[in-house]
């Protein structure tokens, strides 16, 4: 298929003009680290969806208790153990929001009609007649607060401990690492149970109990990073320029570790939520009338057969938060540190 007319002659060529001033020019727009990471995380649909769900959950955790006329600790024993009923959705039979319950023999009845209650409890009520809608969001709020505080304190202690240990090095490093090993060596649960026994159960003791052992993994990760950066040439360069240790750690090392620190924190949040739920479930958590997701599940499971909604709703909430945090953390890991993928 060669066309014979297409002979290439010299006059068809023209020298390209290269402007020497522009040879060093970079056309691409300048993106900093966060913009670059945002571009990458945008492609990860699961992470974005999870992020949206999490943001909604966090907003609802604060707004939710205000949406119903019932307070999270208001008891109304006449209205106890009512199933979920929502205006408008109550006529859609296949949704679980029509206010019906089933008896042991399988027959269904509308609890609201039988007990002549003219009210709408969106998520139902518990055995003391408290509104579960308000309690679930209040519980989410407290669970998230505990988890965020625990993760934040873990981060602060872990980063400073790891940075000092790695940067100073030598004997200091050895001693600090042995201390971590001792802490890791004692089973977590024993420390936590003893802590709760000594302190009174409550939000702050739980946070202390979670952080007393939780910071070690962060400290190890940060130490490893500091050891890596200590020998990097950009750190040596700023040493030869006369930079102080403080500015080397905070200007050169920590910003380069942001990705790893954030990822580690994001993974420790669902762990803290789960651990708090577990503590509340075995009865070492929050005391009435305060609610956390774990204590709600604990309350609900006692009447699991008769009133399943009391356990299912907070369980779904825990599962949703855990899955979303893990997916977001996963997405962040890929976005912030593309080299660490897989």
């Amino acid at each position, binding site marked *: 298929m060669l066309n014979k007319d297409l002979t290439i002659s010299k006059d068809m060529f023209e020298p390209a003009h290269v402007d020497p001033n522009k040879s*060093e020019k*970079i056309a691409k727009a*300048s993106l900093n680290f966060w913009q670059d990471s945002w571009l990458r995380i945008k492609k990860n649909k699961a992470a974005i969806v999870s992020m949206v769900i999490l943001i909604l959950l966090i907003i609802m955790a604060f707004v939710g208790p205000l949406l119903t006329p019932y307070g999270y600790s208001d008891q109304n024993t006449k209205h106890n153990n009512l199933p979920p009923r929502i205006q408008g959705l109550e006529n859609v039979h296949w949704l679980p929001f029509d206010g019906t319950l089933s008896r042991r023999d399988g027959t269904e009845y509308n609890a609201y009609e039988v007990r002549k209650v003219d009210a709408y409890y969106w998520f139902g009520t518990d055995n003391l007649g408290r509104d579960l809608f308000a309690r679930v969001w209040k519980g989410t709020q407290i669970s998230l607060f505990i988890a965020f505080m625990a993760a934040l304190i873990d981060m602060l202690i872990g980063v400073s401990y790891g940075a000092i240990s790695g940067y100073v090095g030598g004997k200091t490093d050895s001693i600090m690492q042995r201390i971590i090993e001792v802490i890791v060596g004692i089973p977590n649960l024993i420390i936590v149970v003893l802590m709760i026994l000594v302190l009174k159960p409550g939000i702050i003791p739980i946070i202390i109990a979670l952080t007393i052992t939780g910071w070690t993994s962060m400290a190890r990760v940060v130490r490893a990073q500091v050891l890596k950066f200590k020998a*990097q040439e950009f750190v040596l360069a*700023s040493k030869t*320029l006369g*930079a102080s240790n403080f500015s080397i750690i905070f200007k050169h090392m920590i910003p380069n570790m942001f990705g790893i620190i954030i990822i580690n924190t994001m993974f420790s949040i669902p762990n803290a939520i789960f651990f708090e739920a577990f503590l509340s479930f075995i009865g070492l958590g929050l005391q009435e009338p305060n609610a956390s997701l774990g204590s709600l599940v604990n309350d609900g499971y006692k009447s699991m057969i008769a009133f399943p909604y009391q356990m299912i709703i907070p369980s779904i909430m825990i599962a949703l938060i855990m899955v979303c945090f893990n997916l977001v953390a996963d997405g962040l890991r890929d976005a912030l540190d593309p080299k660490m993928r897989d």
Partner: protein
Amino acid sequence: MAERQKLLEIKNLKQYFNVGKPNEVRAVDNVSFDIYKGEVMGLVGESGCGKSTTGRTIIRLYNATGGEVLYDGVNVHGKKSKKQLKDFNRKMQMIFQDPYASLNPRLKIADVIAEGIDIHGLAKTKQERMERVYELLETVGLNKEHANRYPHEFSGGQRQRIGIARALAVQPEFIIADEPISALDVSIQAQVVNLMKQLQKEKELTYLFIAHDLSMVKYISDRIGVMYFGKMVELAPAEELYKNPLHPYTQSLLSAIPSPDPISERTRKRKSYDPASHQYNENELVEFREVTPGHFVLCSEKEFKLYQAQVK
């Protein structure tokens, strides 16, 4: 070159790692040499022979195990006040080997270059600081617009030039270039070396140029030191070293340079060096001796006479 002034005197410098343990490493072992003001001193040797360690010890990145480094007659090592340290940091700077690791990926180029300016308070206003940065960027052949970019947007050669600009920011007198070109490809190597040569002329700098590329070292250096296993084995003016290599290791090193001419390349004979070939006696003093003026060789008394006879 009658009034050559010694800028740096290195006397019996020792740098041991893991002292007293079975895995003790003598990275730099009793090295002595002088660097004169305004010259380029090349330092060559095989990988792991202690070239970089020598450079890093001179600039205080490591604390020397023994010996001393005198800069303008003042000892570099030992306890110093903060002000003395800062003065010293301004006089002596370093250019690093790996352009991909020597710039902090989270800082903009302007901040990378201005780090020294900030530490030493060389600019009073923000505007003055930026003007210094632009000036430095232009000195190393980059554009003003590059100041707001991040290191990952640059090529290896460009990054190395940014590294040079960073070192120049504090207006040093002496620069240690630790294999500044070994991570670059050949066309860029020439670019960077020529830039360094030009800067040396303009700013009257003194270089300690560490490399393992012998032809490049010959091109840039006035004098060359050859290191082997932590010891300086030969030190001579560049021409002299290439014409009359005396120490068998230097001869071996020079015989390893490939020649661009295929005919002579085919007949090139590779000499290998065996440290046992010296057959030193136990009580023989192996020292750094001056065979001809300016040409030092590590040898015993017997070899010394042999070398002197050879040169004549």
